[in-house]
């Protein structure tokens, strides 16, 4: 039996972040969500586990507020979820995250394949898959847009800048996938209902055996500021459709961007 793991992240929904006029950032109304790209990862792990006749596990390293992510992930097809809920995650960088995920994966039995998204929708740093593979001592294949799981290996197609590169790698391995590689269907009502009964395994950060240095980020954040576009925000709302369009085109000609 070979099992799969889907690494996913509970992120701040960027639509709920408010950048004030003084460019400070207001997170007070921030909502959480499973990173959009990770929804594809959960599906990929669930489908692959069925091929391998194994168990699909979700894995997340989140803050103390990670609880809503667990039911959400379990409703997306995976069988069980492992999680670490510790506010250290709020300041963790890619190095810390990969070490925590790797240490957790080592506690999960018979893992053949670990799936990550190419990037998370908050930082979009695109590091976790390769870093995780290095921490585990496993090979990694990134930018995977298509894959086929076989008995002891995976055939994966990578979308690079100017070539589609097809590679093979034997288990265990880490795949960083793009959204093309697997669907991300909305969970059915039945899936949402049954997710409540699926196992959740909480691990404590302190129990993972990582030293303080491993849990210390390697960069120092020295400044952070919101970004706000300054735009004209002129709406043409007077007259017929033709008149509105004419006004728009005149404005574009005056701006020198249409001739």
């Amino acid at each position: 039996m070979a099992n799969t793991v889907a690494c996913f992240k509970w992120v701040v929904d960027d639509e709920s972040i408010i950048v004030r006029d003084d460019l400070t950032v207001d997170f007070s109304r921030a909502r959480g969500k499973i990173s959009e790209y990770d929804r594809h990862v959960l599906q990929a792990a669930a489908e692959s586990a069925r091929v391998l006749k194994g168990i699909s596990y979700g894995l997340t390293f989140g803050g103390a507020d990670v609880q809503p992510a667990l039911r959400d992930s379990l409703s997306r097809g995976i069988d069980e979820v492992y999680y670490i809920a510790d506010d250290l995650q709020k300041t963790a960088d890619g190095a810390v995250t990969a070490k925590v995920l790797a240490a957790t994966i080592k506690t999960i039995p018979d893992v053949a394949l670990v799936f990550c998204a190419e990037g998370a929708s908050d930082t979009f740093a695109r590091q976790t898959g390769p870093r995780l593979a290095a921490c585990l001592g496993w090979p990694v294949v990134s930018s995977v847009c298509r894959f086929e799981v076989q008995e002891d290996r995976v055939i994966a197609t990578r979308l690079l800048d100017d070539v589609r590169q097809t590679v093979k790698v034997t288990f265990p391995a880490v795949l960083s996938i793009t959204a093309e590689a697997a669907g991300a269907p909305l969970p059915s009502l039945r899936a949402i209902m049954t997710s409540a009964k699926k196992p959740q395994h909480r691990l404590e950060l302190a129990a993972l055996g990582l030293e303080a240095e491993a849990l210390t980020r390697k960069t120092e954040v020295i400044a952070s500021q919101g970004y706000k576009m300054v735009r004209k925000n002129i709406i043409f709302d007077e007259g017929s459709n033709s008149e509105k369009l004419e006004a728009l085109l005149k404005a574009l000609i005056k701006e020198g961007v249409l001739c």
Partner: protein
Amino acid sequence: MKKIFVFSEKKDLAAGLLTAAAGLGVEAAAFAFDEKMAQALLEYGPAKVYVIDGTDRPESYARAMADYLLEHGADLFLVGSTPVGRELAASVAAYADAAMISDAHNITLVEGSFIVELTIYSGLVCRQEKLRGFGVVTAGRGLAAAEAVGAKGSVERISLEPDKRVTVIKEEPVEKTGVDLSAACRVVGIGMGAQEADVETAREIAGLMGAELACSRGVAEQRHWLPLERYVGISGAVISPDLYFTLAISGQIQHIYGCRDSKIIVAINKDETAPIFRAADYGIVGDIHEYMPLLIEALKAMQADN
């Protein structure tokens, strides 16, 4: 003196990164996989270009490169932000147990420390981070325009051990339409509020405007109406045209990140609450199916007048 190593499998990108390194007043070196590229990179000022003997994928040398960088006193490994470069960079960072910052907009050297500017939350937040010790940074072509300064360094061949656990079975060229949205002066974008038949109408409008046709991520990735190379957004094309004319694009933050450097943004969308209107200079609240025929008519009339 600080020492930066540079790598990209794309010559123009590697050249730009070397120019950025030169601007920091550091000693620069580069990795390359063939002599011709190494000779070309010398023009951009590195003291050394190390040609790695081997034909394996660049990513497969990550562990060996990490060891080499640490042994040779590198302070920063600056890597081109391509799929190959990003995997290599993150792997090197992990093997070296080092920091990594992705998609840097700017790098400065302040009191002996590298300060890197980046954006997070789909561009809503700009951040400056200081590297502690050796670090890895990825960056695209926007970091610095390549500037040849004349060769003064030398090429040295080195041998590094590749990791052969990932085997290439085949490589096929990606069929591209040749579109380079990042260089377009005008872009027409179509979004998820459109129907499939609207793509051809939008294409006609783009043709009349002398614009490239683009789309939001969902149109390319979920609906497959246009190729992936035509979607604008944080994970797609980042554009800076004079005019970005959007049709039925809602304007989610990740899309806006990809077009925020446009000189003028226009929105036509029937949803008056769509965030695209906050990002637009000019807008009309209305159904694109009513406005697209009128737009075609008006653009044709403008062409006839010219």
